[in-house]
């Protein structure tokens, strides 16, 4: 069974789909942001799992450590950047939600649609 080595990816994809479900099925905007952060963590985990090398250690060179196998450091670097960008977008989304609450008095998507429909 060569597919057995892929179960990490599958677990991450299931996680990703739970995040996507929260984003598209839930009406509360804060809940959508939570779903988005679950989705983001899953994508990061997917990238990091492609960098794992069997029998490898974290890519930090010990004093006098010869002939060690290191996991791939490149996905780690890219995902460090992704985490920081992710928290920036989350902060901006939450600030927008606060503004929507101020302007409309609700953060439920269907109620916002109803208010906008009534205004037109």
């Amino acid at each position, binding site marked *: 069974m060569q597919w057995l080595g892929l179960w990490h990816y599958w677990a991450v994809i299931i996680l990703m789909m739970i995040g996507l479900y929260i984003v598209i099925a839930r009406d509360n905007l804060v809940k959508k942001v939570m779903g988005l952060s679950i989705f983001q963590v899953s994508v990061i985990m997917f990238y990091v799992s492609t960098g794992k090398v069997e029998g490898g250690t974290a890519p930090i060179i010990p004093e006098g450590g010869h002939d060690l196998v290191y996991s791939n*450091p490149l996905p780690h670097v*890219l995902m460090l950047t992704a985490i920081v960008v992710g928290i920036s977008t989350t902060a901006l989304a939450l600030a927008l939600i606060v503004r929507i609450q101020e302007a409309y008095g609700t953060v439920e998507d269907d109620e916002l649609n109803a208010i906008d429909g009534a205004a037109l």
Partner: protein
Amino acid sequence: MPLPIEIVLFIFLLTTAVVIARLEDLFAAAMLTGIFSLLSAGLFTIMDAVDVAFTEAAVGAGVATVFILCTLSLTAKREYQQPTRILPFIVVGITGAALIYGTLDMPAYGDPDAVPHGHLSAKFIEIEEKAFLSQDKHAAEPAQHGSGEKAVGLPNIVTSILASYRGYDTFGETAVIFTATIGVMLLLRTRRREKKVSPPNRDQMETTS
């Protein structure tokens, strides 16, 4: 061969995500997102990404949870009960199936011969390893070796790549944080001014809506 702790952490992660999706109490869901980030940090450590793990623990479990809790204190504490709709399940199922079909061509988890481990990554590790280990022996010698490639010479390869080889990437990241900060400040400052200047105006808005 998967470690038992990996399976346990994945089961915890999936359970936490499902509970977040089902909970209507948003405060509890916000705390669970913190737990979710902490569990994923544990998994990152097992996948040898220690730098990603502690960034995720600090940013995901710490800062993001605080942000969400602050937002909840200004908005609703609970979300409304809503009927389960079937269409999102179908969309999510099809997307997930397509993604899983896409992984079938991928190299197995931990495969040392996988494509991402060759080329640039292998070169980074080789250069830095040589530079750091030779630095140990002759401390005075500059961190330079054989083929004329300059190395950073730090023990942590992730730091070397982040700060030097992919320095422009990190610079771009800083620009994103700057932009987001300005956006948040502009959004929240308008709110305060409106409140201070004309409170009756806001009451009017609420009654009309």
